[in-house]
């Protein structure tokens, strides 16, 4: 019985509560019991709220929760008690949601594997020796392991979509400006977005409706609340034009992942969509542009951590945070600004234009989320550049500000693969609709990891 409760999607949970099939107490009891049993193996939660009494959601620990410690995965904020809730948290509370726990992440959301957390790495529920992806590592792993009805993450260069892909769950990065970031600790302000990680596409749609819209505290989020409408595509995709960018199927893409993605695209075609080859010619420069712009904004945002108003001293930043602060400070410094920051901001324009031109020919763009499935813990930690390149397919959409969805679409070497569906600016409706039709006509999302049967590699080591 208890396990059945935790397997339900958010929509399924809402329907069951409506019909009084179980109470919220039973629901929370079931999830808390499962967290107690599995969190020691997975290290998904940094703290658990035993008092949770609403619909239990897991919140990435970079999103402020009033009087619940919020660490951002950093030693600097190990005792930080936010005096207010982030807007997204307030919006969820008003819907009867409660915070069941705060999830582990790469420090200040900087990483692609979860290994940059000051509180030890999160493990992938499909294989405890693999990374869950990052930086919303704990949120994706908690949804995959049925430790919450849904979770919130943040995405700056892929931090919702990539861990969702590596953990076999749904992840949505909304359009830039769709969701208020007030109370979400800033990493790179021209890129950051908060979004849902869920068990189904319909769940992501519901959560987006709940959390989107302006609050007067995020000047880039002004007028664009998302409202659920009737689906345009019901049981087929007749009339949908799907763009396939040739640059997302080149060097670096693992052949096992490529096979699964091509089969998923074939499925879209079988469902009635027209597949059109498109080109995003500046894709190869996206990682370089991103690392200059993101690091520059990081160096500015993280300057507030001076140990005076909150947190400890700057010596407590981890290695990746220090690296990005250094890179960003350099890129903005006198004599180098034009060669680095200004140049990157211009190439960013070209990347945005690539999408605008491609979307003249198609309604959505599809491809892989990640060039590989989940890799071994420790495999890429010694080489920052290799780690950065694992975000090559998620970064371009972040730079362009457009929405992106990761939907489970199969397995390679027994590990999940996610299909990325990108949409026009502020057109989450179409990508969610396409994701939902795909999900309803496929079965891979029904497979669950067998965590109880997995053996870990031992203690939760800090890097």
């Amino acid at each position, binding site marked *: 019985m208890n396990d059945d409760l935790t397997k339900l999607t958010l929509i399924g949970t809402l329907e069951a509560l409506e019909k009084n099939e179980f109470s919220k107490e039973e629901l929370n009891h079931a999830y808390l019991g499962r967290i107690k049993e599995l969190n020691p193996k997975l290290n998904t939660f940094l703290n658990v709220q035993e008092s949770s009494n609403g619909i239990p959601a897991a919140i990435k620990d970079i999103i402020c929760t009033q009087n619940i410690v919020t660490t951002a995965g950093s030693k600097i904020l190990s005792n930080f008690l936010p005096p207010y809730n982030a807007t997204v948290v307030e919006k969820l509370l008003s819907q009867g949601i409660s915070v069941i726990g705060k999830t582990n992440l790469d420090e200040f959301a900087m990483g692609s594997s979860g290994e940059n957390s000051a509180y030890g790495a999160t493990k992938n529920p499909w294989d405890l020796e693999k990374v869950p992806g990052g930086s919303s590592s704990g949120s994706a792993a908690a949804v995959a392991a049925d430790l919450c009805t849904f979770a919130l993450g943040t995405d700056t260069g892929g931090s919702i979509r990539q861990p969702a892909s590596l953990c076999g769950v749904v992840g949505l990065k909304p359009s830039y400006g769709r969701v208020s970031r007030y109370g979400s600790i800033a990493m790179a302000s*021209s890129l950051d977005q908060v979004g849902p990680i869920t068990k189904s596409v319909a769940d992501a749609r519901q959560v987006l409706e709940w959390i989107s819209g302006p609050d007067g505290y995020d000047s880039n989020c002004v007028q664009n609340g998302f409202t659920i409408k009737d689906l345009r595509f019901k049981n087929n995709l007749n009339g949908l034009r799907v763009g396939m960018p040739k640059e997302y199927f080149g060097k670096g893409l693992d052949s096992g992942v490529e096979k699964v993605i091509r089969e998923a695209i074939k499925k879209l075609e079988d469902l009635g969509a027209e597949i059109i080859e498109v080109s995003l010619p500046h894709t190869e420069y996206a990682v370089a542009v991103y690392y*200059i712009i993101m690091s520059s904004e990081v160096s500015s945002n993280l*300057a507030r951590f001076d140990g*005076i*108003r909150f947190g400890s001293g700057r010596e407590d930043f981890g290695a990746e945070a*220090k690296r990005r602060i250094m890179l960003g400070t350099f890129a903005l410094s006198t004599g180098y600004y034009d060669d680095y920051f200004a*140049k990157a901001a211009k*190439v*960013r324009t070209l990347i945005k234009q690539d999408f605008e031109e491609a979307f003249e020919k198609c309604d959505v763009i599809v491809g892989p989320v990640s060039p590989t499935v989940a890799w071994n813990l420790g495999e890429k930690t010694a080489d920052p550049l290799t780690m950065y390149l694992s975000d090559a397919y998620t970064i371009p959409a972040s730079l362009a500000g457009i929405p992106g969805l990761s939907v489970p679409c199969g397995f390679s070497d027994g590990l999940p693969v996610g299909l990325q569906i990108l949409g026009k600016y502020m057109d989450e409706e179409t990508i969610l609709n396409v994701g939902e039709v795909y999900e309803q006509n496929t079965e891979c999302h029904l497979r669950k990891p067998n965590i109880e049967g997995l053996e870990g590699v031992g203690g939760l080591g800090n890097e």
Partner: protein
Amino acid sequence: MRLIGDQVKKVAKLANLPLSEEEIVKSSEQLSKILDYVDQLSNVDIKNIEPIFNVVGSSNVMSDDTPRVSLSQDEALKNASQKKNGFFITKGVFEE
């Protein structure tokens, strides 16, 4: 682009980042490698291209100058490591 030890020290000072000698050496290597990678941007023709700093296009958004509820003094001071008489304690500005 190679960054040598002295340049790294200068950047660390600008960033107010206390780095150990070991971290300086490691930073020189890793930052140089990343900057080498970033140098490929020189291959892009950016003549007459306007930069993007914000995809929404907003800049210098002003709010109305009207008072609204904010944190109480107690709440604002709650997370400070050092405080005195209802104020934050900071380093002296005019001291060396």
